[in-house]
């Protein structure tokens, strides 16, 4: 057999049976700096000045500093969820509610609680997670996420094409 790794097996990290409603995901704390905000804005091609120019943010937006943009927060939520599920976790949907801004100097904390565990009529396993991004006691953004995880070690949500994928 060839040594080439094309057929390498990758085992799922998290299976549906290991998850229950009420489970808490491990928290992620991150010290936000100006670099975090600017890098996140440029990574999402968001050139609007309130995400890189403090004078503009203060004088024109009336905020105390530049702040994390929405698309980059989506990327933080994705990373938080797939750190937990591993690479087999496949996002189905996310609903965001923006409640406040995240600034340099803030320690943002992502936390999540499982609020649904189901199997759809195509046999796809789904986990609902209520994710919160907070700074201190203030909730800044909430994200209701639905992510597919394998129902057994041979299942892989990424193999589902349109007819069998109902996010």
């Amino acid at each position, binding site marked *: 057999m060839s040594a080439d*790794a*094309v*057929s*390498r*097996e*990758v085992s799922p990290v998290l299976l549906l049976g290991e998850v229950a409603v009420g489970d808490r995901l491990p928290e992620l704390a991150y010290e936000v700096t100006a670099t*975090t905000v600017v*890098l*996140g804005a*440029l*990574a*999402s*091609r*968001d*050139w609007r000045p309130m995400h890189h120019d403090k004078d503009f943010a203060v004088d024109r937006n009336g905020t105390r500093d530049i702040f994390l943009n929405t*698309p*980059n927060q*989506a*990327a*933080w*939520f*994705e*990373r938080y969820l*797939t*750190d937990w599920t591993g*690479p*087999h976790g*496949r*996002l*189905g*949907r*996310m*609903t*965001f*509610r923006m409640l406040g801004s995240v600034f340099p100097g803030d320690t943002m904390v992502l936390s999540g609680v499982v609020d649904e565990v189901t199997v759809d009529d195509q046999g796809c396993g789904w986990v609902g997670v209520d994710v919160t991004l907070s700074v201190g006691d203030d909730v800044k953004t909430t994200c209701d996420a639905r992510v597919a995880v394998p129902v057994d070690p041979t299942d*892989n949500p*990424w*193999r589902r*094409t*349109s007819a069998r*994928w109902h*996010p």
Partner: protein
Amino acid sequence: MTSTTDTVAEVRALVGVAQYEESGDFPVERGYIWTTCASVENGNPLFWDDDVARAVTGGLIAPPTMLSVWFRPHHWAPGRTAPHLPLQIHFDLKERLGLPEAVMSDNTIVFHEPVRPGDVLATRQILRSVSDEKTTKLGTGRFWVIDVEYTNQDGAVVGVESYTGFGYRRPAADPPAPAS
């Protein structure tokens, strides 16, 4: 200005109609995938280890939440004319219904076929609903739902973003207090 029954009917006639179809300026590319992963320290091996990507997702993919990134233009391009505003329908509705203020209350992204490096995506905006007039703490106006659909070069839907907007007029200011 108050929107007339005719204007509302005209606006509602656009429900379900695809508008502002656009093609992405650039194919989906790995450099931006790595920049995005680096910005949030995302070590998911799907984006860094080609063998894992082949085994799990049948080849390289982009992070699903990068969907809208592929439609934000670079800061400059030679000879470029101004692109449509993202969510142009939202601004159209404000103007046509005479509602000077607007907020987005929430947004949902639904992920369909994976987006892969080399894909050239297209987008279109579809108005889904316009409510009757409602009064909230902000003022009096209307809620609307706009979908932004993304498809790949094979016509497969890769994702849909839905935005709920509320366009409104602020309540009339209290009459000024008499000078003392």
